[in-house]
């Protein structure tokens, strides 16, 4: 695992403002900063696909930059 890029710490499914399920992704940046971002279904499934996982439970440890792939 590289330490010079943002890494996914956790991914939790939660209802968003509009009642649709969202993926709440916690990140750790290389400088130690923590961040949390909510993804809608399209982006959430895209992240899972680009990280090569079929369950959100397998996202922790994957590089956050993968979300950019294919966008």
């Amino acid at each position, binding site marked *: 695992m590289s330490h010079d890029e943002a890494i996914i710490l956790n991914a939790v499914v939660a209802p968003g403002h509009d009642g*649709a399920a969202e993926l*709440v992704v916690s990140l750790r940046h290389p400088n130690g900063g923590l*961040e949390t971002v*909510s993804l809608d*279904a399209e982006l959430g499934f895209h992240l899972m696909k680009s990280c090569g996982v079929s*369950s959100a439970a397998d996202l922790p440890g994957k590089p956050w930059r993968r979300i950019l792939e294919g966008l």
Partner: protein
Amino acid sequence: MYDIVIRGGLVVDGTGEAGFAADVAIQDGKISKIGPSLAAGRREIDAKGRVVAPGFIDPHTHFDVQLLWDGAAKPALEHGVTSIVPGNCSLSLAPLKAADRKAVVGMFQQIEEMPPEAFTIAFDWTWEDFAGYRDAIAKTLSVNVAPLVGHSVIRLFVMGPAAQERTATPAEIAAMQVLLRECLEAGAVGLSTSFVDVDEKGHPVPSRYADSEELDALCAVLGEFDRMLQVVPEFYATDITIARIDQLAELSLKHKIPTTFSPLFDSRGNGDNAPRAIARVEEQFARGARVWPQMQTRPIDLSFSLLRPSLFFARLPRWVRVLRQPLDQRIASLSDPETTDKMIEDAGPDGGLAMFGALVLRGGDAAPAELTGQTLAQIAEARGQGCARTLIDLSLEHGLDVAFLAASLGHEDTARIGPMLAHPLVHIGASDGGAHLASFATYGDTGYLFSEFVQKGHLSLEAAVKKITSDTADIWGLKNRGRLAPGWAADVVVFDAKGLARGEERPVFDMPGGGMRYTRDAVGVDTVLVNGEVAYADGAYTDARSGVICT
């Protein structure tokens, strides 16, 4: 003789002071006197055992379209809401050139989920300027309306299609300033903008193309009138929200205006979100800025159907694979016993009882109406199936158009949210009344404030009333509203303190063209008066049309 006397109730006057037993006399649309044993009224309202409070004020709604055929903004009024603020999130129905109506209708449909017929058969579109819209709704109002003007429509009016393509030139910004000034002079109580919303094609709404110079210039005009800037920040990312709080604070300080942002909610998986945002708000208020976070009272339900892939299944790989297939392939897979046996196996040894059993059938879709409100566990038991099998089979039987609801999965922890709602800098709002029609009911948040947070001791009765009456009026600068005091507008709600609540969510088909929406009935509200006239009593709306454009 007074016009109306509300007799013998517990007067909770909106100031936060302790309630007291008194009569409330009303004359010529205003509170005339409050005290014991007042003289008779032409109409007497018995309020013994009831609370008599100022009408509630909802600062975040999207009733802009509905007001054109329903001046009561049903069911808002029956919940005790006597004043509403439409025009939030950068969208209003004026100022708007005829040529731009189609574009704005698309944006409204994206946000409000209102059927197309609402824009074609329900009203005559006669106006282009803000005063014209104001006059169009003012004829039949039963509630008071304090309208915002939307940044997106101002931009569209000045720039045309370029409003969704680029930043504005100095000349265009100057023209927007002139237009905003006209709207404020015509009764707008502020400007709304959005950094988040998209139109029906997924394109950012016009306000999102504005640069900081444009927003600053518009806030300068708001400063001339001491009017509100309402903002939808990037609420899905806490750090960006905090950056927006700082931006709003600078605008507030520079132009001496109040600002508010919405929504702010407590989220599973991001428990720091609301506390961090509130802490930043405290810091900015300490500097003298006014940045009011709006927080809703109701929990957030999660809803889905198998028509579209939902992240609800994000931890079930086989379900994800099937549900992300194109519709025809998805239906074929869900009809294949070998595939579904494996999916059901993944749902747990109990057949999905723990995972899916508490899901509720929402209704308003292709499922039989008699199943509305039942849990999947109940339906599965009646069918003699497991829950996962029932979820799949029931969906298949109705073309996958079966909506399921997982109740209270977000913003649901009363012990966390209660203290936030009670915080003096947290503005109770963000109901979104009149929006998300086909997704969930945006009504009854006021009742829920009392049934959940007052009953469980997080706010006193008086504090809760103050939060949604005088606090709201003061934040928005609404004159002579939000308190029960002689000379103030007679917007009054009479309710049962212990019984005030919201009804169960249910689908109704009362939109133009028979369109569906989810709604909630009021519980525990006896009487609602707007400007001294009884607008709702004994479970029914009256013919009163005493609502006004209020500023």
